């Protein structure tokens, strides 16, 4: 391998790069085109159609232009306001729990103890199996007559009789939260674990040499180092939780008496359940606006936070 051949290939690369400037653009279009087209037809077009539909009174029969009527109705509806608030409450509490549990889980699985490889596999099933199937399991756990939770509560003397977790307003909502947390935690755990393992050992060793304790190292090294992953996970988790449908639908269908109705459930009931496409479409538009606003605010806060922590 002489300098000459290196020079030769460098020249080749240079010539080639000049030659392929134009084709590269078209080659990229050729590669991405199909995926883009598919998304445009199946996602973007329907979404645009939804915006149009939100100004219509539309059902199975036909559609009629009604202007902002659908939106006015939502603005005035107290029930809808409650649903919006409930959805954000649902999102914050569920995501908060997922992050806390995920952080605890990642710390536990990051500990240098035998068997941790197996433990890492064992936490994954809630994520791997279909949510709908996992929910059947939870439906069973929450069952008042035969469920193990009701059974254990009675056995321990906390409950004085069979307790139907999904039949009462408060417990139905929080039962759905628990199941949502159960589904979402493995993913958060896994990503935080990966982030923890990506932290340079030198930092810990230097701190250890300086006599820093475990708690100090965790607060001052681990947390700041995994902060970028933590906040990214929070946003992803928030969007998925906001849109979480299967869990609530299977466990409570939004009940009892609307206690677990989030925006998604409400939209589904109105549009697909009652064929009121126009009113449903207006709700979809509201959801998209709320989610976009949330994501935007989040990104701004995120940038500030990251700058303060001084990472990247």
């Amino acid at each position, binding site marked *: 391998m002489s300098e000459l051949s290196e020079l030769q*290939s460098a020249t080749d690369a240079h010539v080639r790069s000049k030659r392929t400037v134009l*084709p*590269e653009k078209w*080659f*990229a279009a050729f*590669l*991405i085109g*199909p*995926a*883009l087209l598919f*998304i445009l*037809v*199946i996602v973007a077009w*329907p*979404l645009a*159609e*939804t915006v149009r539909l939100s100004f219509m009174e539309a059902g199975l029969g036909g559609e009629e232009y009604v202007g902002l009527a659908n939106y006015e109705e939502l603005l005035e509806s107290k029930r809808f306001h409650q649903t919006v608030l409930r959805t954000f409450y649902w999102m914050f509490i569920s995501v908060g729990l997922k992050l806390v549990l995920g952080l*605890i889980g990642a710390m*536990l699985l990051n*500990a240098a*103890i035998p068997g941790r490889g197996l433990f890492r*596999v*064992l*936490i994954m*099933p809630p*994520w*791997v*199996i*279909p949510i*709908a199937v996992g929910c*059947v*399991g939870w439906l*069973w*756990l929450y069952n008042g007559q035969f469920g*193990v939770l*009701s*059974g*254990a509560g*009675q056995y321990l003397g906390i409950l004085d009789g069979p307790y139907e977790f999904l039949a009462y307003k408060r417990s139905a909502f929080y039962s759905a939260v628990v199941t949502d947390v159960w589904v979402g935690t*493995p993913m958060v755990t*896994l*990503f935080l*674990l*990966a*982030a923890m393992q990506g932290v340079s050992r030198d930092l*810990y060793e230097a701190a*250890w040499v300086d006599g820093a304790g475990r708690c100090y190292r965790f607060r001052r090294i681990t947390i700041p180092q995994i902060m970028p992953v933590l906040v*990214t996970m929070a946003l992803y988790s928030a*969007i998925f939780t906001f*849109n979480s449908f*299967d869990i609530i639908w299977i466990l409570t269908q939004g009940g009892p008496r609307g206690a677990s109705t989030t925006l998604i459930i409400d939209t*589904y009931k109105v549009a*697909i359940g009652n064929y009121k*496409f126009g009113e*449903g*479409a207006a709700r*979809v538009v509201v959801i*998209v606006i709320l*989610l976009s606003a949330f*994501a935007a605010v989040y990104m701004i806060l995120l940038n500030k936070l990251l700058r303060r922590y001084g990472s990247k």
Partner: protein
Amino acid sequence: MGANKMMDRYTKLQTVGLYAAIAVFLLFMLLPFLEMFLTSLRPLQHLFRRPYQFWSEDFSFDAYSDMWVTVPLLGRYIFNSIFIATSVTFLTMIFVVPAAYAYARLDFPFKSASLAGFLAVNMFAGAVLLIPLYRVLRMMGLLNTYWAMIVPGVAFLIPTGIWLLRSYLEKIPRELEEAAFVDGASRMYTLRRVVLPLATPGLIVVGVTVFISAYSQQFIFAITFNQTRELQPLPAGLYEFIGYQSVTWNEMMAAALVGVLPVMVVFLFLQKYLVAGLTAGAVKE
């Protein structure tokens, strides 16, 4: 490593505490499966006994044979689930592989904008798009066909696939492709003969991730876009165990566990690559 071992040594008490905490964490993650399994072993009349019993002596595997009689189409549902998930995975990969390569290697206008656009789809994934999709699929005459469950699945998984595969492809050294170019190979040839073989582990990781997600998503599409009984995937079909008079819980649990076997098997064989592949993208950012 040596210094690390010294640093991270736990006292006996701490070790016991760690294992106890892990046990509680795992119990939360596995409790539903544990209870589903125990229920599938219980004869139905046992479930009505009072007071509640955690354990019983009359465990049997009868539910695993009876369930095929109670829900005659059960085998069909499991087949449908596998068929839909496999089709979604196959189609998604056809769209994802070229696009991910372009994002990993090529320079072109609107690169980051279009990538962000793909990612934004994730934001609307799921129930938000159900209504517009319902109308589009109705217009195309695809309601109540396999396509009604396959097409939305593909659309929602393309962005995830591109995102994951792109970060994988970026880790393959460019020099190998450069060498092929120097030898006069075309870009397409290089993609097929150099990049894809090297990317096989990554393709498997992304494929498995897509498969698992596709398997999981079926419920919502099935109940919304499909009224044909013969085409139901397992998650929707499970509800047939809820009869007019009674629910055969034990058989329902048995069917649910048998139904997730395919995806669990795929996961167990490939979990090592899967965990590594998924987290690789996260650590980078």
